[in-house]
């Protein structure tokens, strides 16, 4: 499959507004659009095999269970995990990280223990640890972000000397587009005796992921940012770790035997999947993985890099525009910027009148905005369905902003 005819696969992207403009969606870092095959996979489940999983004896229940478990295997292969029992379905990245903090964290972290995060984390990889800091008295330290948007790795080395128990960093910043050298960072963390958790919410949609090559102990991501539906995400964890962790939510499916006053837990991965899961969404996620595989993650990365380079080059020509984040080297496709004469809300509003969707605000990363002394930024983020023409439309829209406000 080539990237040239991709637009026809995404019904939403073929919408035309009253002025004859096609929807220009530049907010995939917030959530991605869904191809027809994903929507259809979920429809198919509801229309033909809707039944609860892991319990029905009848035919459609078996088909539903089979489809659900097939998705798990597709996801396992997609991130190159060693076993399907290491793939836990959650609601999203946020829930995945909360799962780790609430099970591994509560069991293994004592008062005074250190957790290392970075200044560029979005709230999903910040608040669960803050809650643990409040409840259990653990300490948090942060790898600083340099002015050019990269992590200060010298400082990271120093922090590792403080004997942290776990290092939790984003594989790709949703604001800066920074892609930290997580493989090397994991090596360093392990040498220091710490576990390594990757917040893969932005990384998994945009580049090839091999959790064994990275040697990540945990890897969390969401379906909806990678062509899949909302309400479903993944926690990958190394099997031995997951085995050693207490359960998260209690209820059906996560149990083996239940007595009035006690229970035994089910095997992995079901131990962490309490209650009826998001079955249709899991199946839709499987279809999204199929679609990404057909296009190829390398092709997607290459396409995004081309668009991102062009966008950065053209954005830098807009008067008064400042990009927050790296402007060269390998980076993600989220490009955040400020205009010294217009507030991000106004920028987004004016672009909206051109049927262009961008994000304005702090993008769920308030401390990072504080770090760069800006209350908010405007962010354009690109995915496999975006085109160079759309970058031109963005620039034309920004010229309109300059005309009104500059």
């Amino acid at each position, binding site marked *: 499959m080539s990237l040239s005819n991709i637009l026809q696969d995404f019904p939403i992207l073929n919408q035309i507004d009253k002025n004859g403009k096609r929807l220009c969606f530049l907010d995939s870092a917030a959530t991605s659009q869904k191809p027809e095959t994903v929507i259809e996979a979920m429809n198919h489940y509801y229309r033909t095999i809707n039944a609860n999983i892991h319990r029905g004896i009848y035919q459609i229940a078996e088909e539903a269970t089979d489809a659900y478990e097939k998705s798990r295997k597709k996801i396992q292969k997609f991130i190159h995990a060693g076993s399907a029992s290491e793939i836990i379905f959650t609601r999203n990245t946020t829930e995945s990280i909360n799962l780790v903090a609430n099970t591994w964290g509560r069991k293994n972290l004592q008062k005074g223990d250190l957790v290392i995060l970075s200044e560029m984390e979005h709230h999903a990889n910040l608040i669960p640890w803050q809650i643990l800091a409040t409840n259990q008295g653990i300490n948090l330290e942060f790898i600083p972000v340099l002015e050019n948007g990269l992590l200060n790795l010298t400082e990271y080395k120093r922090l590792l000397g403080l004997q942290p128990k776990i290092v939790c960093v984003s594989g790709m910043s949703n604001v800066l587009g920074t892609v930290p050298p997580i493989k090397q960072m994991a090596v360093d963390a392990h040498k220091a005796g710490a576990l390594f958790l990757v917040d893969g919410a932005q990384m998994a949609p945009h580049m090839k992921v091999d959790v064994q090559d990275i040697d990540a102990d945990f890897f969390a991501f969401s379906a909806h940012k990678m062509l899949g539906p909302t309400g479903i995400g993944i926690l990958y964890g190394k099997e031995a770790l997951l085995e050693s962790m207490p359960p998260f939510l209690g209820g059906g499916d996560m149990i083996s035997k239940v007595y009035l006053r006690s229970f035994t837990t089910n095997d992995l991965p079901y131990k962490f999947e309490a209650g009826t899961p998001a079955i249709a969404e899991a199946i839709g996620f499987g279809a999204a993985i199929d679609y990404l595989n057909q296009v190829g993650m390398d092709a997607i990365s290459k396409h995004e890099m081309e668009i991102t380079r062009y966008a950065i080059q053209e954005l830098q020509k807009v008067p008064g525009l400042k990009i927050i984040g790296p402007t060269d080297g390998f980076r993600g496709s989220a490009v955040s910027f400020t205009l010294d004469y*217009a*507030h*991000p*809300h*106004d920028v987004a*509003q*004016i672009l*909206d*009148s051109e049927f262009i969707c961008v994000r*304005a*605000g*702090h993008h769920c990363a*308030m401390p990072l*905005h504080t770090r760069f002394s800006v*209350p*908010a930024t405007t962010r354009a983020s690109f995915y496999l369905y975006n085109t160079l023409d759309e970058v031109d439309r963005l620039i034309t829209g920004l010229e309109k902003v300059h005309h*009104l*406000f500059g």
Partner: protein
Amino acid sequence: MDDMYREIILDHYKNPSYKGELDPCDLSFEDENPLCGDHLKIFLRVNENGIVTDARFNGHGCAISQASADLVVESIIGKNVEDLKKMTKEDVLDLLGFEDLGPVRLKCALLSLKVLKGGIYGVKDAEE
């Protein structure tokens, strides 16, 4: 949406007449819109009859929130504090010349009213 940025909004945003601080003042109050990081502080001077004799605002935010603050502050000078309590969302939209705004931008437009009322009711609480 294009006419959201009419002359009146852009004028009051780019060249606000009442931006600044009052020192001393009888009343000041600040608040923010956490979603977008807009921050607003309003300063009032009130005489013994409860009449606002001077007012200013300071802070940062989008064109809608800043223009709204300038227009609201302009409109309250000379009025009785008791009357300000009756100010409504519609009054602010009238000042801005909007019939309606989407739910997100409405928060920007109404930040000034929220701050103003927060300040006035704060004083009332202190007196009681």
